């Protein structure tokens, strides 16, 4: 019962965020960047301004709607990069073993020693702010868990009968890894990927909040909150809605990840219940 609730609520929240992001031009009331009008500055939420307006008279509702695009793009794309790096390194390390395994292990340990947000911050410092830099910074810093998981699965799978059969049939290494090993480890990797997307959304918000992510005036939920901090006494509503959007999106991904884990990773279900 609880299993379904996770999946349904999480899936719906995530789907809602995606729909909002896709339909942003139709859902938004005004242009999120251009429509600044000081006549409307710092209006509290009302029927005209659903979420209120900011210090430059921009409609917060429209900015939150457009902000979904940045958060989701960064969340999905950077996690895809992480998953590809993690699976690529982990799977090959577990399959081939030997010196390559040692190299991958050393790399993973190095990644685990540096807190990922700090590493991402350092990369942003080098690349400068912007969407591409965000994708690179967050895509390169959060693959270690996927890598460990893929390596462990590959180690246990490579001696299975069907993998040996594939070797005997003369399949190449790459073909064995992709057609025989990968499908059998996908479940837990999808789970980690879903949870990782949530943390990427949070990291994007954090970096943008620090002024290292998406540059204003483009509406990122994180940079909106950074502007809100300075006006918290005069316009507290500015601090509410972007944060709520982050919360609901990440909550959706976390619940979805938990729900998927219950289905795709039965081992952990028996551990948990």
């Amino acid at each position, binding site marked *: 019962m*609880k299993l379904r609730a996770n999946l349904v609520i999480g899936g719906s929240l995530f789907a809602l965020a995606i729909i909002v992001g896709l339909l942003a031009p139709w859902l938004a009331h005004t242009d999120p960047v251009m429509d600044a009008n000081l006549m409307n500055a710092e209006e509290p939420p009302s029927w005209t301004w659903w979420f209120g307006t900011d210090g430059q008279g921009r409609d917060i509702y429209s900015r939150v709607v457009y902000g979904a695009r940045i958060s989701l793009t960064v969340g999905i794309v950077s996690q895809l990069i992480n998953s590809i790096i993690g699976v690529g390194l982990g799977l090959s390390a577990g399959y081939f073993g030997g010196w390559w395994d040692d190299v991958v292990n*050393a790399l993973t*340990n*190095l990644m*685990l*020693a*540096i*807190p*990922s*947000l*700090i590493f991402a*911050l*350092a*990369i*942003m*410092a*080098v690349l*400068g702010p912007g969407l591409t830099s965000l994708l690179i910074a967050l895509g390169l810093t959060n693959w270690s868990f996927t890598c460990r998981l893929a390596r462990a699965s590959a180690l246990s799978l490579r001696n299975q009968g069907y993998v040996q059969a594939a070797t005997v049939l003369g399949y190449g290494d790459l073909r064995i890894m992709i057609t025989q090993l990968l499908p059998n480890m996908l479940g837990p990797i999808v789970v980690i990927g879903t949870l990782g997307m*949530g943390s990427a959304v*949070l990291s994007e*918000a*954090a970096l943008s*909040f*620090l*002024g*290292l992510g998406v540059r204003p005036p483009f509406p990122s*939920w*994180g940079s909106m*909150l950074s502007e*809100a*901090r300075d006006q*918290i*006494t005069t316009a*507290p509503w500015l*601090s*509410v809605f*972007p*944060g709520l959007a*982050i*919360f609901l999106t*990440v*909550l959706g*991904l*976390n*619940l979805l990840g*938990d729900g998927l884990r219950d289905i795709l990773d039965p081992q952990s279900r028996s*551990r*948990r*219940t």
Partner: protein
Amino acid sequence: MLSFLIRRILQTIPTVLAVVLLVFVLFSVVPGSIVSTMSDDSDPQVELRMKKQLGLDQPVYMRFGVYVARLATGDLGASFRTREPVTTMIAKRAWPTLQLIFASMAFAVLLGVPLGFIAALRPGSLVDTVSMVLAVSGLSLAKFWLGLLLMYLFALRLGWLPSFGYGDGSLKYLILPAVTLGVSPMALLARTTRAAVLEIMTADFVRTARSKGMSETRVVKWHVMRNALVLILTTMGLQFGALMGQAVVVEKLFSWPGIGSLLVDSVLQRGIPAVQGSILVVVLFFLAINLLIDVLYGVIDPRIRYA
């Protein structure tokens, strides 16, 4: 024990060296000369002189050699702007950061572990459901958003606590940042504790203890708690790393004068020696904490031996 400690410390050396190399390489490929962003007048002679002063006219590998040699003596370089040694900058800010990290970890452990325990002892109950909903919500919050809301409520509305700053270093300044930072490790600890306790409750040795007539309180106290502690410790160790990362955001939000805000400010001003130094110190701290936890494993669980 001693040989274990020495071996573990030796094991961290390659990691530390790799981090040093990584951080150095990362910042020596910064596009654009640091000097040209520093001086407004683009007189090439001035630029050359500054480069020479800072040793930036040397090839990269030479600079790396000098950097490592200085590191070995505890010299992290000096700020390009103010010429203040990075070691002093970090030393001044280490204590506030340590206060913040340990206070939030204490908050997380004191709240999260009992919450997970209570939830696990009555699985499926209202307490269980509510605490797990709270836990997943705690993990989904943006830390600085929570901080902003707490700041608004407890500082600006109710006036109970100062809204930001370090003040005289007293406890009231620490509460809001520490709670903000502590919420997500608390949530994670509650979940881990619950999962660990649920798993241990079905273990053979618990069934044996019960069947020989041991009271439930004693079973939980003697068998379940001790075994759950290992998993809780592991989670704590990993969470210290995440805390160090998140501290950057929380320190910035609350204008807390720690290493995290030093790191952000240095990144924004391209103060490279301070960035390199702060990252290195954070990594060293994280490695030290993990070493400590490895030692604690053996204290809690005698089955783990340091062979």
